[in-house]
């Protein structure tokens, strides 16, 4: 149970820093001197997925210190590196534990590890295994990976597990935005009204939460089925749908100018959040993200400013 809770904690990012595994050599099953050595990151979820993937296999697991970050991100940041692997190989005295001279690396660590350099550093040859830990038993049996095992996927399930983390990283931004919203909502013909601040503020905060759902939950889930390739446009579509819903709910309580404000605000926030999701996918290039941001940010900032102006103007018309 504690383990389950821990997984939830690690996924949502709340206690992510506590979910490191101590680096070093671990056993899976009953490994011998000829069993394969599989290298992984010291991120709890990477470790657990690997352990589950290797049920029924006898292997050594070499956990390297990536400061609790998963394989893919650690390789990108340079902590999952040939040097670190070599360091752990020496520290574990691996050359006295196994008779072969080969370690299996996750394929998605290849942007951080030059496999051909590993041998020079520690005497062990690096060999890239499949992308998914679940394919490891099949890989070990066949001795090689087929094209499917080497192709990265981004299934509905893989997208869904990323969402809680995305949301949790937004709390700080959200609380700042909410504070600004309450202050701006209270501006009235007689300077400042706490009642207005609360009553109107709640509406716009609710719209922001709806936009969060549209941009950071619905857009990632529906990703391949939404039109356009640029993420902010996908997010703008979901934001438009969300703003229609908000208009429907709030038709009576909102003035005309406030309705426009709510729509613009929801669309631009959702577009922004969807654009942020590019960082979590395994198929968006940095050049591409920079390109879409040049258009996307102008639209998002422009319409967010317009939305706030209309919103402030609400009590005056």
């Amino acid at each position: 149970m504690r383990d389950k809770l821990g997984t939830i904690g690690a996924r949502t990012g709340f206690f992510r820093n506590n979910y490191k595994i101590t680096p070093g050599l671990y056993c899976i099953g009953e490994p011998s001197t000829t069993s394969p050595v599989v290298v992984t990151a010291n991120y709890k979820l990477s470790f657990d997925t690997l352990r589950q993937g290797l049920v029924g296999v006898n292997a050594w697991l070499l956990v390297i210190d990536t400061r609790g970050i998963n394989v893919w991100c650690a390789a990108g940041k340079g902590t999952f590196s040939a040097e670190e692997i070599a360091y752990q190989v020496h520290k574990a005295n691996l050359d006295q534990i196994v008779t072969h001279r080969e370690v299996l690396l996750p394929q998605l660590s290849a942007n951080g590890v030059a496999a051909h350099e590993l041998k020079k550093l520690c005497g062990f040859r690096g060999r890239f295994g499949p992308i998914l830990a679940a394919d490891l038993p099949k890989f070990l049996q066949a001795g090689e990976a087929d094209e499917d095992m080497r192709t990265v996927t981004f299934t509905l399930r893989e997208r869904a597990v990323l969402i809680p983390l995305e949301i949790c990283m937004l709390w700080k931004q959200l609380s700042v935005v909410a504070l600004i919203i309450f202050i701006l909502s209270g501006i009235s013909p007689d300077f400042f009204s706490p009642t207005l601040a609360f009553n109107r503020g709640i509406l716009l905060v609710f719209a922001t939460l709806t936009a969060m759902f549209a941009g950071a939950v619905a857009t990632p889930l529906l990703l391949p089925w939404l039109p356009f390739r640029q993420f902010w446009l996908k997010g703008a579509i979901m934001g438009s749908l969300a703003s229609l819903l908000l208009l429907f709910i709030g038709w009576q309580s909102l003035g005309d100018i406030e309705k426009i404000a709510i729509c613009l605000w929801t669309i631009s926030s959702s577009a922004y959040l969807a654009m942020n999701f590019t960082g979590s996918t395994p198929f968006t290039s940095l050049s591409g993200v920079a390109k879409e941001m040049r258009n996307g940010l102008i639209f998002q900032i422009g319409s967010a400013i317009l939305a706030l102006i209309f919103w402030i103007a609400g009590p005056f018309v």
Partner: protein
Amino acid sequence: MQGFRYLDDTAILRLSEDKCIGCGNCQLVCPHRIFQVRDGKAKIVDLNACMECGACAKNCPTAAIYVNPDDGCGCASYIINSWVARIRGKAPSRCGC
């Protein structure tokens, strides 16, 4: 990777065939299967699927591959940080993810 295509003609990925010795490392590591070695030389078969992860360049023994080196982590906040940093003339800070 079916169902997922990102922007065309934006990825920065170059291969200099002269340097290539046809070892096949790039073909092996690329998670989007962008390289194929034919007749002892690597070929880029689907440039637009490249996500600029840099795995191929890192594992090329002869440095025959060039990938957009501005790595960071590819997320929007990193790019915003680096733009802000360029305006202020400082080194970009990390994005925190």
